[in-house]
């Protein structure tokens, strides 16, 4: 239980800190870089190194590379849905989650089985 509380606090703090940085910077395309900041990753990997060891964290890092490619295509999908079809941000971001899921799980299945 304590571990999950620490995870929650670390993750919440890291995500909030990067979100504030994203609010501060202009132009918007630059601020968007912080939308793909490793906020959840830093907190989770720090805990993984501490609890499960280096080999476990290395495997998480390797899978994270596929997740990142899925995030790239997700962001492109969100951008296109809002610019071309003028969908509201909430609808575009939720719909595009299917892109992330398909690419992440499909990529993992293709590369690592």
């Amino acid at each position, binding site marked *: 239980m304590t571990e999950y509380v620490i995870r929650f606090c670390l993750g919440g703090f890291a995500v909030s800190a990067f979100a*504030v940085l994203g609010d501060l910077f202009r*132009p918007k395309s630059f601020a968007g*870089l912080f939308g793909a*900041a490793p906020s959840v990753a830093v907190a989770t990997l720090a805990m993984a190194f*501490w609890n499960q060891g280096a080999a476990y964290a290395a495997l998480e890092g390797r899978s994270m590379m596929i997740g*990142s490619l899925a995030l790239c295509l997700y962001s492109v999908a969100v951008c296109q849905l809002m610019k071309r079809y003028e969908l509201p941000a909430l609808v575009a971001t939720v719909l595009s989650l299917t892109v*992330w899921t398909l690419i992440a799980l499909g990529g993992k299945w293709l590369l690592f089985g």
Partner: protein
Amino acid sequence: MNVRIKLSALRETRWHEYLTRFVFGGLATVCAGAIASLSGPEIGGLFLAFPAVFCASATLIEKHERERKEKAGVRGTRRGKEAAALDAAGAALGSFGLLAFGAAIWLLAGYSSWLAILVASAAWCVVSLLLWSIRRRIWAWRQLNFGPWSAAAQASFPKSKAPRIEAGPD
């Protein structure tokens, strides 16, 4: 356009919006850990790049931009969507930085945990900034050569309607 800091943007975010981000971020981290515990690090690792707080962030950006325009007396719906779309375009570039982060962890985890996290963070920063800088240069070049103010566009306009420019690109 140069990168600048706009401190007044912090005043636009209300306390409950900060709280929402904190809770979403905390929950995303707990879920990523729980998925890794249940399904192993290969599935869990995917969720380290899950766009958990992207929905909340994009919605806030759209809302803030729309409110700013409406305060100025114009309809801000379209501008709000454009701002959120630009943020998503930035995130697409930043995701390559995240890929570099994952690669550094994968390659360096065996040496030292702190070294791996430090180098990975630096890799995220360098790759993201480099790609953004390249994209900005390409955009500027395209504007100069093919945009509405380019010499070609100027030549295609009738002289009376052509926008005037003081100096050429070279």
